[in-house]
């Protein structure tokens, strides 16, 4: 009988209390060996109504990054809990959890939500008690012509404890349009009465063929609302010049100029025809050989 078997046997036979005590002791030792973790959390609600959570985790002893560790995120409200997803930290202790549907967040009557995290299956780290808490906002983006001036109108509201709409005043929001590599800032608004802020639509903004454009409104780094964005389409931008898209020598134009195609084709046909002819000639040389191996050394 092995030592383990002997131990288990004695535990079962003698007293169950001993087993409970031993397990509790082992748990305390294990927990005691874990290092506390500190996390910096950030929340963004994107225009497609999904949520992204970014976190930077460091241990609380040496402030070294918590690397390659899986973190689980939850939305909690009272006793209810919704699992949002898992993400793994990189070499710098950073992670991003993307694409979480906003509907997964548990909201109270004032549309406030709470996001917490755990470090599942880790014997090394113990999650800190940081909780993200933000209030959801409603952003309404419209395009209105006021006194013959095309205006971008933004109205931002939230909810009170009773679930009634409350307009948010004195808040900055930023306007962007997506471009090839990044978002191009095109303006800024400040909400006043009834949570409304407005700014003239830029007159020099190039859009699609009919002047269509997608405009983003973002609330950035708000202590109360986090990062929130919405997007809306407009056709007030400058229509792109159809002719410029057809410049034939640009890489993005649909086809190269005809003279280029013809020249290229002629060159290729000319060169490859001669290659083919020479290869054929080589075969003819081979076809003309006889059984004798003797070389004719006549000059």
């Amino acid at each position, binding site marked *: 009988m092995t030592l383990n078997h002997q131990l288990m046997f004695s535990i079962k036979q003698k007293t169950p209390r001993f087993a409970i005590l031993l397990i509790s002791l082992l748990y305390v030792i294990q927990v005691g060996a874990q290092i506390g973790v500190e996390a910096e959390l950030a929340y963004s609600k994107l225009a497609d109504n999904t949520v992204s959570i970014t976190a930077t985790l460091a241990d609380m002893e040496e402030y070294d990054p918590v690397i390659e560790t899986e973190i689980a995120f939850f939305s909690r409200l009272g006793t209810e809990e919704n699992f949002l997803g898992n993400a793994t930290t990189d070499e710098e202790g950073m992670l991003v959890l993307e694409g979480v549907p906003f509907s997964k967040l548990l909201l109270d009557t004032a549309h406030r939500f709470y996001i917490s995290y755990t470090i599942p299956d880790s014997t090394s780290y113990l999650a800190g008690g940081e909780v993200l808490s933000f209030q959801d906002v409603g952003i309404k983006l419209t395009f209105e012509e006021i006194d013959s001036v095309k205006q971008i109108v933004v109205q931002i509201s939230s909810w009170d404890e009773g679930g009634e709409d409350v307009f948010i005043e004195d808040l900055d929001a930023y306007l962007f349009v997506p471009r090839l590599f990044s978002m191009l800032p095109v303006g800024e608004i400040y909400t006043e009465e009834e949570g409304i802020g407005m700014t003239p639509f830029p007159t020099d903004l190039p859009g699609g063929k009919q002047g269509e454009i997608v405009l983003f409104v973002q609330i950035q780094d708000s202590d109360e609302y986090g990062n929130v964005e919405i997007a809306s389409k407009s056709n007030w931008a400058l229509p792109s010049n159809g002719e410029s898209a057809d410049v034939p020598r640009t890489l993005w134009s649909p086809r190269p100029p005809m003279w280029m195609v013809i020249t290229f084709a002629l060159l290729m046909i000319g060169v490859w025809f001669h290659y083919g002819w020479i290869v054929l000639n080589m075969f003819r040389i081979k076809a003309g050989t006889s059984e004798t*191996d003797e070389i004719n050394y006549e000059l």
Partner: protein
Amino acid sequence: MSLMSFKEITQQTLADFKPQLEKFTKKDWLWTLSLSAVILWGAYALYRQITQGEIVTGMRDNVVWGLYIANFIFFIGLSYAGAIISAILHLLNVDWGKPIIRMAKLMTIFTVVIGPIFILLCMGRLDRLHHLFLYLRLQSPISWDVIAIATFFVGALLYLYVSVVRDFSILRTSDLKMSKTRKKFYKFFSLGYRNTPKQKKKLMLSLKIIALIMIPTVVVVSSVLSWIFGLTLRPGWHSTIFGPYFVLASIYSGVGVLILLMYYFRKYQHLTKYITIKQFKYMGYLMVILAATYGYFTFSEYFTDWYSSEKWSSELIHKLFSWDEFGGLFLFANLGGIALPLIVMAIPKWRTINAITIVAGVMVLAMWVKRYLIVIPTLETTLLPMQDTRVEYTNYSATWVEWALTFAGIAAFILMFRLASKVMPILPVWANSEIIAKENTIDPKSSAHV
């Protein structure tokens, strides 16, 4: 001199290459192992680059091209040079050029294999290489280059092959000690050539046509390479002279490398009978003509940029003339690449084999430096103001990985030449035998005895 038949002359010429073709000596093994070690070092560097990414090179966001692209231009330039030099010498039927034609053709093949490898090393997403063919945009100079190099490669292979058929037929029927496999190889590739009037006519015509095709092909492919740079709006690149400048620079550096190859094989394969001071002097004269023309192009290029004082161009010119930046390299490129060949070849008593070879060596190095100076200073001259950026993003510095792969390329070039000289005579046996016959005969039409 006793009268010899043409057959005897060819056998005697072939006998001069026998030691190289029959034996793989200890010295050969030593060379092969040493060069392989350098190539393996490069392979290790490549492994590091593949596993860790291009961060192990000095290339960054702004200076996106470095040593690799300089090597690419250099090697591919040598390739174009080999093709055009051998084609011109062949078409003009220059007797003194016959001993070097095969070296030029081999140089074409080896460098057109090595050169494009360097362009692949520059690519961040090699896994998307096939996109070049799947989504080819005919309006892109990069597409032109891919097509041009592929076409040129096939042409160069064909050119070499057509010209070695006669020598393979001699080797097939020779009494050289060789394995059965090798004998089969010569038999297969000699196409049963027996120099019958019909075969001779077909072969000579094919050789003439492929030589003729290679000349415009080289001009086109070399110009296409230059347009990858010239058709951009960057200072130092956006130049109307870039096409001919690249063609000329290619031929010029090719002449230098050919002189080095002539020296190497003359000395180590004891070919003093075939490669004489005559070849060195004539190649030296060619070097002088090209140096003068290249010098004129260089002056014209930089003088125009300097005089117009356009902001970006001035910034670039300042870098090239500044001792703290590229001044030293720029001076070396011009002194070694232009002035030195002109000075040395101008003095008759300096026109010796050793002096011409040393000048060619310095010139080749200077021409490589020139390629470096075409690429790096321009990329370091950023179009937009750069603030609060890391130094390595705007200032290029080659890493050991890039140097290892550069030396691996050079080692591969030398190794290929050494191995090729074990498979075929490094000089064309038939063509050289014809010269010997011509020099010693009254009636070149005579078949039996000359």
